[in-house]
């Protein structure tokens, strides 16, 4: 009988522990009490609970965490980060996992990163969010209507959505800000 090869997962565990430590998150201090999950408002919509996400990373199973539905169901409500008795910033951990899943193209719920991408394009272009265009582009890109079909028309009926983009004369400052962020990442 052959033994189980664990060196690969150990390497992943080490890699993530260090990466997260640099961001101020120490997953080795998590003692799996589950308080983060107990207070998480989105837990019922997740495949892995927040506690399990931390466990996956401790065990070197980062790939499962990155491919989880959990990270996209997280509402960033900060309840877990507020209550963790070991001061593990689970909310920020979710952010970092989303960034990585997005970068490597393994997002389990692609609509969410598509929404973020479309949102940021609007901010880059106008300095602010142009909601009408955001909704239309999002619908086109995901091939589905904003699930809440009545959102747009209802908002329009109250004169809350504008047919013209927002205007703020920042002298191109926000566009340059986006460019500098991209330069830094070297892409």
């Amino acid at each position, binding site marked *: 009988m052959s033994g189980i090869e664990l060196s690969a997962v150990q390497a992943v565990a080490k890699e993530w522990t260090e990466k997260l430590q640099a961001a101020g998150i120490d997953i080795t201090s998590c003692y799996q009490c589950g308080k983060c999950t107990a207070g998480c*408002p*989105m837990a*019922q*919509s997740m495949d892995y609970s927040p506690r399990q996400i931390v466990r996956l990373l401790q065990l070197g199973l980062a790939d499962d965490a990155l491919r989880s539905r959990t990270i996209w*169901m997280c*509402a*960033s*409500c*900060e*309840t877990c*980060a*507020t209550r963790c008795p070991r001061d593990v*910033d689970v*909310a920020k951990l979710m*952010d*970092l996992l*989303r*960034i990585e899943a*997005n970068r490597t193209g393994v997002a389990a*719920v692609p*609509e*969410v*990163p598509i*929404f*973020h*991408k479309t*949102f*940021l394009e609007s*901010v880059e272009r106008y*300095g*602010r*969010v142009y*909601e009408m265009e955001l909704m239309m582009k999002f619908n086109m890109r995901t091939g589905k209507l*904003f*699930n*809440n079909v*009545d*959102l747009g028309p*209802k*908002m329009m009926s*109250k*004169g*809350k*959505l*504008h047919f013209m983009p*927002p205007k*703020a*004369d*920042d*002298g191109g*400052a*926000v566009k*340059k*800000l*986006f460019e*500098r*962020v991209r330069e*830094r*990442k070297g892409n």
Partner: protein
Amino acid sequence: MRIAYYPGCSLDTTGVEFRLSTAYCANQLDLDLWEVPAWNCCGASSAHSTDQLLSLALPARNLAIAEKEGLDVAVPCAACYSRFKTVEAEVRQDEKVQQDVARVIDMDYRATNNTRSLLEVFVDQVGLDKIEAAVKKPLSGLKVACYYGCYLVRPPKLGHFDRAEDPESMDQLIAKLGGTPVDWPHKTECCGAGMITLSPEDGLPLTYEILRAAQLCGADCLATACPMCLMNLDLHQESVNKKYKADFNLPVFYFTELMALTFGAEPKEIGLDKHFVNSLPLLAGIGKKETA
């Protein structure tokens, strides 16, 4: 009192009544709001789910403009406020972050000024006494469930102005306006933010629980400080009713709207007609005992 003012995108669109009522209250209370010129979106959850540096730089540009004027920044939207507080903390803690951010925004920024939620500005800086003195039409015991949501109070390490688990600033304010703040357990429960729009089956249960708790505790209405909370509780109340065969009819206000009403504003001039749950029948009862 003078303070820089960052309205944020929502206050020009889905939250326009927050802007109108804020302006009304500031005017009544001699609060001079200096709107950050050519302010930009804070990037919201889209930025912090995409790129850390971007999520710091977008709010920082606004903060830097105010810092140059030597002013703190008042932020009405709880979501924007939380992004601003995060940047402030990270820039103060870490010199490398400070330098990276300054380079990307091409401005010096050292976080010597403070971000303040608009609720904090009114309650702690303008002061409850001054607010009480400006009340002409008290809320006449209107029962209000104060809903703080997530970002006014969490995470506590950012140094917020109120307690993380049982905040009370808005409750104190409502009491000074002549209302009765109800004691209820969902003050800081999350409403699911954008989830309701992206995936209603995952988001609606959260909104349902908040409305249910408010109703069970005897509230006539809710008060909030976040355009997203308001949209979820107000616009989507109809969808909640449909899904849960419920009959909630709970108006949802920005706290500034309730302030403005007691100061004598007409509902229309502060945009109350832009809500989806009609609040006018409920408001017919306020201002009954005139203050002497």
